[in-house]
Each structure stands twice: as C-alpha cells, then as structure tokens.
C-alpha cells in the first residue's frame, strides 16, 4: 500500500479508537478556530437604527485589525431590544465579569459555572483551547523542522558531521527539559511565541535521532544506490528520496509530542509562566482555581478535564498511527 496522507487517514478511520480520536481532535480544532464567534458577548447579527450589522466580524481575526463599524464602538449591546439581536451560542466573552454572578455552580445560564469574578467558565475554556492547540501545533512544527534537518544531515553525511551532531543531541538530552523551558520562558518576557520557541528548541532531539536512524538504515538500500548512480545531487537525494521514506516514525512521534507540548504549556501556565493575562489558558484557569477549591469544585474539574481530554485524544491518535504505520510493533 502506498503510504500517502489519504491512505493513512483511511486506515485510521477503519479502527474504532483512532476514529474516535480523529473526531474528537477535529471537534477540538473547530472549537479553537471558531472560538471568537462561539463564545462572545458581541452579537452575530444586530439591527440598530434600522440598519443591519454583523458586529461579530469585529472580533474575528484578521478583520479585528480593520476599523469596522466605527459608529458601533460605544454601544452597550445589553441595552438593545433582544428581538433585534442574535447572540453567539455562549453569549459571554471570556473577560466579561459579572459581579452579581460570582462563583455560580453550573446551571443552564452558565453551563460550567462562573469564577470568582463572575466570568463564564465555558467561554474561558473555549478561548483557552486556542492557546493550547496553537502551542501544540507550532511548537511541534518548530521542533520537527529542526529535528528533520539535523537528523537528515547527521544520517546522510555521517563521519564528522554525524559525530558533532550526535554530541549536540546528547548535550541537549542531558538538560532536564522542563527546567530548561522554565528558565528560557522565565528569563525572557512572557509571550506565547517564546513558549512555543522554548518547547521547540528543547524538543527536537527525539525526532533528530529517529530521522538519523532511518537514514542510516535507508542509505545503503538498492533504491538509493540506483538514485546515486543516476547522479542526483545530495539535496535531491535527501529531500526527494530519503526524507519521504523516513517520515512515518516522525509522524507518530510528532503526535505524541503535541500531547506533551500541550501538557508543558499548561504546566507553565499553572506555575505562572504562561501567556500573560487576560488571555485565558487552561493551566492558568486551574491555577487560579486553587484558591476556591472547597467552594467551587467546577473551577478545578472542567479545565483539568479539558487538558486531560486533549492529551488523551492526541495520545490515542498517536497509538493508532503507530499501529497503522508500523505493523512490526503491533505484533508485540
């Protein structure tokens, strides 16, 4: 069977648990992408002075950089006639505080309850998924690129290059990853980009070792000898012949890596080194729940569940991918 993206997806879909994880991951992704209009107090549609508006467009990237509807800047939506409005599914923005609804238990009005400032927890969790998933994707993207490049160089050229790169890998492995990330993030200013960068700069060793091993294995196979005889350049050999053949284990490792990147980001936020407020992130929600544990169980339960669910989903997908891509391992 040819190993194409479509075939992999197809064989994942044929298995029960991987299918479930694909669906869940898709839902999580949709939630993160559509967060800005799923949970917001800005109406989707409004009629104001006999003109129709779509005020939500103001909240959606990249339209939020334009000055849409300047005449609506100072309107209090709550004061308008409810009939002339269509509000989003969860009609609260993550930062809308409501001092009359402090620490309310889950109810129809607030499905997951409210926090100590009366902010809707569901809305905060939905907006927090943006942070977690983007860290997962981008940090892993950074380290897969570094790992692919360095692993390919080490495996292809061997000799001195391999020796030096292997030492570099060994050195980076020796540092305790979480402490290193904590230090990088703690020393630099607090921003989402630096968190992604720190995870990316420390996580590439696993990928590099995998790719290096695959290259060593593939380098002397017949198809490579044939390709070399044709007089192809090193670049072409690496990128067109070796790399595509060694991507399978990288894909598995990257999926597990995404789960651990999400875990690292939420641990950092929990320790107070995450994205600066007011942007909500799951770890930070959990951390701020610690003060109200005996009064408000929902504050600690739901963000924790969100982290747990996304990590489980990614791990399940990783397991499924491994089964699909590596029939050798399935036997054991």
């Amino acid at each position: 069977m040819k190993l194409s993206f479509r075939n992999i997806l197809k064989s994942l879909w044929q298995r029960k648990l991987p299918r479930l994880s694909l669906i869940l991951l898709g839902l999580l992704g949709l939630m993160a992408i559509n967060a800005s209009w799923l949970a917001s107090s800005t109406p989707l549609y409004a009629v104001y002075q006999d003109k129709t508006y779509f005020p939500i467009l103001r909240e959606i990237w990249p339209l939020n950089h334009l000055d849409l509807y300047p005449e609506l800047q100072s309107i209090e939506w709550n004061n308008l006639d409810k009939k002339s409005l269509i509000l989003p599914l969860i009609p609260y923005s993550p930062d809308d505080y409501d001092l009359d609804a402090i620490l309310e238990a889950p109810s129809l009005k607030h499905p997951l309850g409210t926090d100590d400032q009366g902010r809707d927890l569901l809305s905060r969790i939905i907006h927090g998924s943006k942070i977690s998933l983007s860290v997962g994707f981008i940090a892993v993207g950074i380290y897969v690129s570094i790992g692919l490049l360095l692993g390919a160089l080490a495996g292809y050229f061997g000799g001195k290059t391999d020796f030096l790169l292997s030492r570099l890998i060994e050195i980076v492995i020796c540092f305790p990853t979480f402490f290193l990330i904590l230090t990088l993030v703690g020393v630099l200013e607090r921003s989402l980009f630096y968190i992604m960068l720190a995870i990316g700069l420390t996580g590439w060793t696993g990928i590099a070792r995998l790719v290096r091993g695959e290259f060593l294995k593939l380098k002397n196979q017949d198809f490579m000898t044939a390709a070399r005889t044709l007089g192809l350049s090193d670049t072409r050999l690496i990128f067109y012949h070796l790399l595509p053949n060694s991507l399978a284990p990288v894909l598995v490792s990257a999926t597990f890596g995404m789960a651990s990147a999400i875990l690292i980001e939420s641990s950092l936020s929990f320790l107070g080194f995450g994205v600066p407020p007011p942007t909500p992130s799951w770890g930070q929600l959990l951390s701020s729940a610690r003060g109200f544990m005996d009064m408000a169980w929902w504050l600690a339960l739901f963000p924790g569940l969100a982290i747990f669910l996304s990590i489980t989903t990614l791990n399940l997908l990783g397991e499924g991918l491994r089964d699909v891509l590596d029939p050798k391992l399935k036997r054991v």
Partner: protein
Amino acid sequence: MGTYILKRLMIFPVTLFGITLITFFVMKLAPGNPVATKMQAAQGLQSEALSGEVYEQTLKLYGLKVDLPKSYENFIAWSTKIIHGRDSKESPPFTRKALYEIGQATFQYITWLKGLAQLNFGSSLKDFRPVWDKIKEALPITLILNLISLFIVYFVSIPMGAYSALKRGGLWDQTTMILMFFLYSLPSFWIATLLLVYFAEGDFLGWFPLGGLTSDGAEVLPWFQQLGDFLWHLVLPVIAMVYGSFAFLSRFSRSVVLESLHEDFVRTARAKGLNKSAALWKHAFRHSLIPLITIMGTLLPALLGGSVIIEQIFNIPGMGRLAFESVLARDYPTIMAIATLSAFLTLVSLLLSDLSYAWVDPRVKLEQKSL
C-alpha cells in the same frame, strides 16, 4: 567491548564541555543585567545612584566582570592599531569593543569553569548564600523522593506488565492497558491539586498534611515517630509523582517479557515440562530484567524534571523548588549550577546504563557504529 567502553569514556568529557558551554552562553545572552536590577531595587530605583566603583565591585563579585590578563590587553591594543592604524582610549573603535567583549566572555567562562571544578558555584543573587550550600540542602530531599518513587514504580509496574504478558489479551491485560493509558494522560499538577484538596487538611478527608516535610515540633519526637511523620508527609507527593511512570514502565515490561517469552530458551523450558508461570518467572522474567534495569538511566531524568511542579505544589524544599524559585528571582548563578549539575548527573546515569548494558549483553558492541 573494550573499544566501546573506551570510546564512550573518551566522549564523556567532550559532552560535559558542551554542557558547560551551552549553560554559560545561554545565561550570558539572557536580557537584563541581574546585578543592576538588584542594586536598583536595593537603592530605590535610582539608576544614577549606582556609583561606578560599587557597581564594578559587585559585578566582579558575581563573576560578571573579570580583570583581563595583561597579555590579552596588549593583544587588543595591538590588533586595534593594526586594523584602525591608531588606538585611542577615549573613543574606542568597534574592533576594540568587540575584542574586549569576546575576552570578557571567554575569561568569565574560564573563571566559572575553575570554580565548577572546585564545586564553587558562586553565591546566590537572591539571598547571597553560597549556591553549593543551597544545593547540598535541597539535593538529598529530591533524591529521597525520587528513589522512593522509582522503587514503587518498579515494584508495582514490572509484575503488572509481566502478568499482562502472560495473560495476553485477557481481561486483566485489557483493563490495565486502558487504565494505564488514562493515567498516563492525566496532568500531574491537576492530580496533585485534587489530592491536596480532597485528602489533605481540608473540608473533605483530612488524612494527610498540606505540604512540607515535617510537622511542627517533630524534632522532639523519638526517631521512629519522626520517620513516620516524614513518610506521612511524603504519601501524596509520591502518589502524584509515580502514577504517570506506571503506564510507561508496565507497558515496557509487558513488551519485553512478551518478547522473551518467544525466545528459544523459554520454549525449551516449556518443552522440558515446566508450567507456564514457572517458565515466566524463572526464565523469561530474569532475561527481561536486563533492559528493565538499564532503562532506569532514562527514567531518572524524567522524574527529576517532574519534581519541579510536584515540589512546588507540595511545598517540599528540594531541587525542584530551588530551581523554580531561582528562575522566579532570576538568580543566574543558582540556575547555572542546577542546570550544569543535573545535566552532569543525567550524563553519568546514561553512561552507566549504556555501559552496564554493554557489559550484560555483549551483542551491544555491534552498535558501535551507531554511537
């Protein structure tokens, strides 16, 4: 075999050198001058009030500035003259400045390395105590915590995995696999927080203390009660630390035992008439202990890293909390010391596990090439 060990041992100092180099220069590149920040905080934000003399002295005290040797000063003057044709002290040309900075970095690094060799990590920027003293207090606590955790992880997950391998596909195998999978995905800081709320002095079940390592006034108790008190404090943190590793190790032991169950010598033992469990425990299991023990080298660093969060939540004064607090206070000497020391420990444990593996299993020498 001999060449393999020799090769590994010769590479060791190279890697160690790389570790110190990276630690030093990453900290050098960090923005902000910690001494200036400290002094400004002490003197009430008057940056002008930092008199040149005192500032220089403090910088030198923390190894952020060193006196360049005379010969290097001469070298700077000489190369500046050659490149620019003159050497004026008043308005230093670019070359002079660059060479000065390079010299500073190099000689600071050398001074720091000399200190490292004598276990002198400088003094903390936070409370001005020697860093080595702080580490000496914190390290044993973390080691005890990790050794207990490691012991429990091995004690529980190896028999569990071996039993799963024996009854492969059975009810036990499937339920533990699913359970372990979920345990593996539970974030430890979440579990730690929940444990604290529900099982430590609170409104629910106040079975365990809220944190720390000893109760108030425990010093006057007889030793066995002190020990009991200490262990009582360790229950929750140890639970929070071990459950994630259960999944990893029990799966590993399952697959290792499964593999050795298929080996020829196990089949021979079965053919001799040994029953399945005797063949498992006496033959297959012993054989699979080798990779299980050597994997400890890779498990230890993970546990050490995980203790940052656990120690912070349970208020345990070990290396993890020291690390966290020094990052919080931008205490560069302590951060550098912890990074170097833990990288060194990891390097040693990786080396030991590689060597013991090669010693136990002579086939390893075939892998020399893929060093």
